[in-house]
């Protein structure tokens, strides 16, 4: 991010930026930056909280009136979720969704794939309702059934994957995995019995308790043995987050 500021200022475009990693901004020295203490992925801090987002934006933009730089200011306020995430006493979230049978008990890949499809089918009505209510979905490329098909077909060696014209298998798998995660989250928060899980609670549930998470780890393992470098790289880096 800081490098872009250098490039644009050299072309006479004034810049200001939000910084998420203090030490990186300190080293790159862009002209103007406001460091925020929020988790990666949330540069404005809190979803659906316009007053908080404006409290972040105003000082970031105000830096445009600084007389000299580089200037790196610190935003003084943390988000409740970030603060709880840093503390071992942070609230724990109990997901209301318990799939049956538990995917953790399946050892056969066909059965795990079947459990995954069943999960997706159970969540689909909640996803549809949520999408309708919010007027929006962050699912980008594949509807849930197509995404599940791409992932299961690859895992079970069921021939060429459908529905992704022009994409390499590695790109299709990565995008299908991203869409499945978005689908699960949007379905979950649409249920009336789900208190909004924070990002860590959702990740713990998705990677620890769903067949989808298990399938993605199986694909990660399968990619490691591929001749195709793009598939190996995808499995190694782009499917399962560090620490899961």
């Amino acid at each position: 991010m800081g490098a872009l500021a250098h490039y644009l200022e050299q072309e006479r475009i004034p810049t200001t930026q939000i910084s998420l990693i203090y030490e990186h901004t300190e080293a790159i020295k862009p002209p103007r930056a406001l460091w925020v203490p929020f988790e990666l992925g949330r540069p404005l801090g809190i979803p659906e909280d316009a007053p908080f987002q404006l409290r972040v934006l105003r000082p970031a933009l105000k830096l445009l009136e600084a007389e000299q730089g580089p200037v790196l200011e610190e935003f003084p306020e943390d988000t409740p979720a970030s603060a709880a995430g840093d503390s071992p006493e942070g609230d724990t979230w109990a997901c209301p969704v318990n799939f049956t049978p538990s995917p953790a008990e399946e050892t056969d890949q066909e059965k795990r794939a079947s459990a995954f499809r069943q999960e997706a089918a159970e969540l689909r009505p909640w996803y549809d309702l949520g999408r309708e209510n919010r007027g929006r979905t962050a699912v980008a490329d594949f509807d849930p059934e197509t995404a599940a098909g791409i992932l299961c077909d690859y895992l079970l060696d069921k021939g060429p994957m459908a529905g992704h014209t022009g994409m390499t298998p590695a790109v299709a798998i990565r995008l299908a995995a991203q869409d499945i995660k978005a689908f699960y989250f949007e379905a979950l928060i649409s249920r009336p019995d789900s208190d909004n899980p924070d990002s860590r609670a959702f990740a713990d549930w998705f990677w620890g308790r769903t067949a989808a998470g298990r399938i993605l780890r199986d694909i990660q393992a399968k990619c490691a043995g591929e001749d195709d470098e793009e598939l190996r790289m995808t499995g190694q880096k782009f499917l399962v987050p560090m620490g899961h």
Partner: protein
Amino acid sequence: MARLSSLQEPMYSHLAELPLPRFDTTPWASGPELSKRRVAILSTAGLHRRQDRPFKAMDGDYRIIAGSSRANDLVMTHISTNFDRTGFQQDWNVVFPLDRLHDLAEEGTIGSVADYHYSFMGAADPSSMASHAKNLAGLLAGDQVDAALLVPV
């Protein structure tokens, strides 16, 4: 949260060992007071219009986001799995604060909101963005933008 010292392994080592570009000087472009500035968002979240090309590994190019875009028009295909996406899934403003910029224009804090905004994909090597950024500067100037708000992810 994102002081390196507060992160746990393996994220700590991943970010601490990331090669960073170094610059000997810091260029400094100036402009009028904030209430007269025209502001564009430049994101590195790998955002693009739903019908646009997804980002691929290490792409240093950018996608154009029209100022008339709405939340459902925008998707994220950043390659990294190591940041939260649930915030964006709930509210695009937590990553791409276009509605908030309009709020600030309405209250007179900034002059206006640009007609076009842009997104790179931040996992790309910054040096691969340099020529694209030069091209982008011309587009921003053509849109009368005199304030680029850079938003990471």
